[in-house]
């Protein structure tokens, strides 16, 4: 008669402790985040529960990117992250900066210096540009920032950012299916040719957000993955 309440109590205790995170892991996660927050640099946080990537600095989330995320786990890889904090080492989207040069000097008085030298052909870069011209050039350059790119982190994590508008209509779905078939074949070929298969995250987001995230990234930017 007394066994049943004791058993029930034990089960309740077990259920309670099972839901809580491992204290050692929790401690490790907190220490990692403290170290990042004290570094005074921008860092990314992947929050799976919130479904977003957060651009953070000193624990202040300055920008949130809503994303749909999936993990691609290679065969034989344990179902755990290789680290809590990763560092971006390559794959930053390129931004081709407009270049300007000083404008040519005004024509000098030829009475004292002789005939003027022949005019240098105007290449565009040397002319004094108005803010509107510079803005146009900047916008053109920004339009060239890709919305689909792969970021490579240490240790062994790739993030495939896919800023793609939702496929609409039959042609959109067809293109999407075709692209994913191509990717699948590419992955198979890569494995066949012995290329290393790394753990990766596929992030689907709005194209503008993807471009914005790309512009925010800096070399060696840390990434923290929250796992509850």
């Amino acid at each position: 008669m007394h066994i049943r309440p004791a058993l029930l109590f034990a089960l309740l205790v077990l259920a309670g402790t099972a839901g809580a995170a491992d204290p050692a892991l929790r401690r490790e996660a907190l220490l990692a985040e403290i170290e990042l927050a004290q570094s005074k640099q921008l860092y990314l946080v992947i929050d799976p529960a919130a479904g977003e990537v957060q651009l953070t600095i000193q624990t202040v989330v300055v920008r949130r990117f809503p994303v749909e995320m999936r993990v691609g786990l290679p065969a034989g890889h344990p179902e755990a992250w290789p680290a809590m904090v990763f560092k971006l080492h390559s794959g930053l989207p390129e931004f081709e900066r407009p270049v300007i040069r000083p404008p040519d000097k005004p024509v000098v008085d030829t009475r004292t210096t002789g005939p003027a030298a022949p005019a240098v052909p105007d290449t565009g870069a040397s002319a004094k540009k108005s803010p509107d011209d510079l803005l146009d050039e900047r916008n053109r350059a920004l339009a060239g920032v890709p919305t689909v790119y792969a970021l490579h982190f240490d240790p062994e994590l790739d993030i495939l950012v896919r800023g793609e508008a939702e496929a609409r209509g039959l042609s959109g779905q067809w293109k999407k299916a075709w692209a994913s078939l191509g990717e699948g074949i590419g992955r198979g070929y890569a494995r066949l040719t012995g290329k290393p298969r790394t753990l990766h995250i596929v992030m689907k987001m709005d194209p503008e957000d993807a471009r914005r995230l790309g512009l925010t990234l800096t070399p060696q930017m840390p990434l923290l993955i929250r796992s509850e």
Partner: protein
Amino acid sequence: MSALFGDKRKPTAKPQRGAAMAVPRRDRNDRVDQAEESKAAAKGAAPARVERRPRPQRRPPRRVVVALVTPPVLAILIAAVLVAYGSYRDLPVGALAAAPPSEKPAKAITERDLVQLEKKLAGIAPKGVYITVDTVENKLRVMRGNEVLRDALCSAGTGVVLEDPKSGKRWVFDSPRGVRKVLEKRKDPVWTMPDWAFIEEGEDLPRNWSDRIDKASLGDYALYLGDGYMIHGTLYQRYLGRNVTHGCIRLGDADLEFAYRNAPVGTLVYLY
């Protein structure tokens, strides 16, 4: 051609080169039937109705079918095998466990330890007023905790590169990223123009320091962030909300005054 399409009937006379190809097959069959009818009429016999032969079934031979079907089937098979071979296990991000702790703690971790660490983390967050600057969307916010005290349009760096062919020097007009502090605040600030301000205009560098002084460009107030970067006013209000500066953050008059009055020296500024 006829063998290819299974038509084994030979023509009665050898056609001119190219003529057989030009005559449609159906016409050629009809012509043969007509020739037999006219032969019967010449012999004096009553023109008996000639029974037309059933046309042979035009089914492509097996090897053609094989030749046509095999490559796409093979390609589909190879693609399917490659896709299967290269596939990853697809899981939600939350499904993966945390990385195991890198070091074993010396003593057992208590709930109190964790609370202390959480307090330490929370203690890093800025206290009081702080400023955030989105240098891509050109927005400046004066914040306290999660409360937005002021949401303003600003202008940040163009990201343009200035190259001076004479000196070989290069300047990148980006706003800084990361955390800075308001180091100093000034009313009616004066700008000491750096070299690039002259080079950009195609002017020679001034010999006298006084020629570098500009009392008009910075507006009524300036908040100094170090390394020559400031939050200041502008003569070009219409460009607010756009990237037109050499790296400083420009604000409209009212927003600048608000920032000047509410952000004391030491205020943290987060630029991203």
